[in-house]
């Protein structure tokens, strides 16, 4: 992370978050066009304006907040890190690995994301106000400006997420390494998002996502290996009472007992250019057993996880187990979901009926071929129940 001008991780994180925001805005716009474009051009235009205002304002606010956050962070005394710099580098590399690992999987399933987003948009539109009082206060305003609020919230959320990720991934980078990759990430994200969503096919979007995910995982594997490397360096420096690796490359800068290779050049911490190689691929001129093993172990973990996910997608559960899914392995699932959103079959059936009723009711109010819609809703609900019962 020694690059003073361009931090690769920041670029990819900003790119990814921008892409997500662009997709949401694009989904919204498509949705509006589909629903209103032909029939009420005036309303369509107005709502479209709302969308753009919301998106724009969201981006603006999060740029301000992000700038303030990072500015404040860097105006604080940075020396707290430098004392045991290797330890902090290790910890932040580890945090960054975890963040990027989870982000990457989500990115692979961004088409899933699109479907999710359509639902969320729809939910915002359809959810009835809880009480009469709310209708005239918050709920009313939300409804009125939903086409503003949705992109606003989305862009803000993605933006802040980017700020947090960027902050977490690159705590120890110099402040000067921020602006350029952020701007580049924004431009590239918007360009790619617009191009792929409007101009390209789903396949090319998918391909692009695969490429960027692969790059993200290359970065993450490198970060993980680096985290281990930094921990080892920290321990070695504790033992030597000095800062051996700060002296650059060559004899006396590393622990020979743990060395797998050491070349007296291409040092990512001191030699220009190699830090990019280090950020992207985890290059070390002084590799240790720990750094090499962790790099390989990380990839094996990624490969196994993806294989399991693939299997689960085909079979509904993990291999050799009937009831276990990946999400059930996550402890958070037990805390958050269990008992709350998991409904019994009976409950679920009841709720679906209720929802169905509401939907039909609403549709009928506007007297437009409600029968067809209701019937279809019922059909899907039945399918869903079948899946749930299975």
């Amino acid at each position, binding site marked *: 992370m020694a690059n003073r001008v361009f931090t690769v991780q920041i670029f990819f994180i900003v790119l990814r978050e921008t892409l997500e925001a662009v997709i949401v805005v694009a989904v919204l716009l498509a949705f509006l066009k589909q629903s*209103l474009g032909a029939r009420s051009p005036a309303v369509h235009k107005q709502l479209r304006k709302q969308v753009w205002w919301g998106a724009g304002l969201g981006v603006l606010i999060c740029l301000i907040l992000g700038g303030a956050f990072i500015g404040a962070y860097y105006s604080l005394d940075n020396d707290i890190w430098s004392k045991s710099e290797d330890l902090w580098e290790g910890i932040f590399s580890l945090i960054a690995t975890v963040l990027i690992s989870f982000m990457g999987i989500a990115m692979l399933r961004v088409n*899933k994301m699109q479907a999710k987003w359509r639902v969320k948009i729809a939910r915002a539109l359809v959810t009835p106000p809880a009480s009469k009082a709310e209708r005239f206060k918050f709920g009313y305003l939300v409804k009125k400006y939903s086409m503003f609020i949705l992109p606003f919230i989305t862009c803000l959320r993605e933006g802040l997420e980017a700020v947090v990720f960027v902050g977490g991934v690159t705590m120890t980078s110099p402040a000067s390494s921020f602006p350029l990759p952020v701007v580049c990430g924004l431009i590239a994200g918007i360009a790619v998002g617009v191009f792929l969503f409007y101009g390209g096919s789903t396949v090319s979007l998918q391909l692009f996502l695969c490429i960027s*995910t692969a790059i993200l995982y290359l970065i993450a594997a490198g970060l993980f290996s680096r985290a281990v490397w930094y921990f080892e360096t920290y321990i070695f420096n504790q033992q030597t009472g000095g800062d051996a690796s700060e002296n650059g490359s060559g004899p006396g800068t590393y622990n020979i007992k743990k060395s797998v290779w050491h*070349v007296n050049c291409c040092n990512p911490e001191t030699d220009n250019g190699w830090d990019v190689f280090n950020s992207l691929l985890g290059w070390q001129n002084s*590799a240790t057993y720990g750094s090499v093993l962790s790099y390989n172990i990380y990839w094996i973990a990624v490969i196994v996880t993806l294989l399991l996910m693939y299997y689960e997608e085909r079979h509904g559960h993990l291999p050799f187990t009937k009831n276990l899914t990946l999400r059930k392995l996550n402890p958070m699932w037990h805390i958050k979901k269990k008992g709350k959103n998991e409904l019994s079959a009976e409950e679920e059936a009841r709720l679906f009926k209720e*929802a169905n009723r509401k939907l039909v009711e609403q549709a009928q109010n506007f007297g*437009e071929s409600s029968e067809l819609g209701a019937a279809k809703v019922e059909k899907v609900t039945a399918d869903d129940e079948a899946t749930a019962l299975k």
Partner: protein
Amino acid sequence: MRLSILSSAFFAAAALAETHVFNWTTGWGTANPDGTLERPVITCNGEFPWPNIRVNKGDRVEVYLTNGFNNTNTTLHFHGLFQHGSTQMDGPPLISQCPIAPGDTMLYNFTVPDQVGSFWYHSHTEGQYMDGMRGAFIIEDPDMPYDYDEEVVIILSEWYHDLVDELTPKFMSLYNPTGAEPIPQNLLMNNTRNNTWIVEPNKTYYVRLINIGGFVSQYLYMEDHTFTVVAVDGVYVEPNETSMLYITVAQRYDVLITTKNDTSKNYAFMQMFDDTMLDVIPDDLVLNATNYIVYDENADLPGQYMVDSIDDFLDDFFLVPLEKEELYEDYDYQITIDVVMNNLYDGINYAFFNNISYHAPKVPTLGTVLSAGENATNAYIYGTNTHTFVLQKDEIVEIVLNNQDTGKHPFHLHGHVFQVVERGPTFPDDAPEPYNESAPYTPPEYPMRRDVLYVNPNSYFVIRFKADNPGVWFFHCHIEWHLTQGLALTLVEDPLGIQANETLTDNWKQICENVNVAYTGNAAGNDKDYFDLTGQNVQPKDLPAGFTARGIVALVFSCISGVLGCVVIFWYGMADIPDMEKRVLADLNIDERAFLAAEDDEEDASADAMGSTINALSKQGTTHEITTSH
């Protein structure tokens, strides 16, 4: 004329020669020389410090040294003595003798026929002398060429709070990969801090400044007084007045100091660390040590005396010996050595001449010389890791030393004083400058001679001497830490001459037998085939160069797993998700599920069913609110 005076002096001294017998037993006691910590020190017959010895030119010295330690060997070296015909009394272990085992007694028996001035003695075993086993050794000159009123010996050193036995394992460690030398705690003068030297006004003192330290060089300067240098390392020089001296460990400067008329005030005599030799400078390390030149014991003691610059110290290179010896114009044999610090395969930082870090042979080199017969002229039998050169009788030897290290090093040659032909200035760390023999250079007509010479960082020196003293002589850095790291080589000077001159004493052989060290055979202890060095001591292997098989395998595996991971990401990412909508539904709450289902239907049917529920809903959901807002 001069010669006749010298030779008559010699015979006069020889006639009066007496024998000094010393019975010394080493041991451990405690002392607190720097006034801050009582610590174990090596004692002489239970006393600390060790005595300063004074003999006359031509006298015989007999030191019966008994090793009183429980578990360490020892030796004694008289620094600067030529040891003509008595190389076996020189002292360095496994060079000219075997280490003296605990309980054993060695007799050091030699004469000092042709040297006068300031010398010193110290243990030559494993940095031992830094724990206190050292003292001044003065050879008085019956024909002193300079007038003075009184003579004073001032011994200087640095002082550690930890024992060498504790410091060495930490120093020679995987966890000291940069070879950082232990940092001393204080500077001592005459084995104390804030030493008081009581002087009388209007007198000239002949002061013998002897650095008996093991590591750091010192700057010396006095408040309103000057040094007039008249001898270095036992060689008289033409008087040279200076306000500041730079003295490395093991060097000696004999100076004249003339006191003032006035007795109203006392003056500071400062010692200062050459802090460029310290790897780190701890916050609590006092770099300036203040001592007192006291004219009036009732007057105030002076505070520390500061100078603006330490650059103007006397450059010993320009001193001219009183006894003129012309420059040896040409050398017969040249030894070129590069000083390098590097790590070997055990991770420890070693010091090298060229690529060899001195590792002692299994048989003292002198033992090999005396047992090898004609083979003694072949350097190979002394081992490949002892870095031995065989010198021919009376040839002019030139040693070119290129310092590729960034530190100063004081180098010491046993058995000789050498002519200093050239010493380069300090060069920057990124551009060390080796000696260039063809560069135009005019050497001094009468070069300075001494036995310890420092080399500047990244620079070089060139010295010459005549191989007229048969013996086995060590050439090494006098920084004890660097000697431990192997910064040494062996000169076997006229081996056949040694065989002709010297027979080993029974006591010498007994020392070897008692410590179970062979004294015949080659460096590996082989006395059948002197060219078979199997089993000799060697330095650890070199560090692997860049990528070894292990590194290549690791790199290839890492690349494979990276590529494989990317392939799996593509395969998974491009694969369709079966029942994707349903899967999304499963994540949603009831309203969302219902809504989505409805919307999907609309999408499916959008071509013909223009007014589907969802379309209507969305239209209603938004337009309704907007209209109501009017």
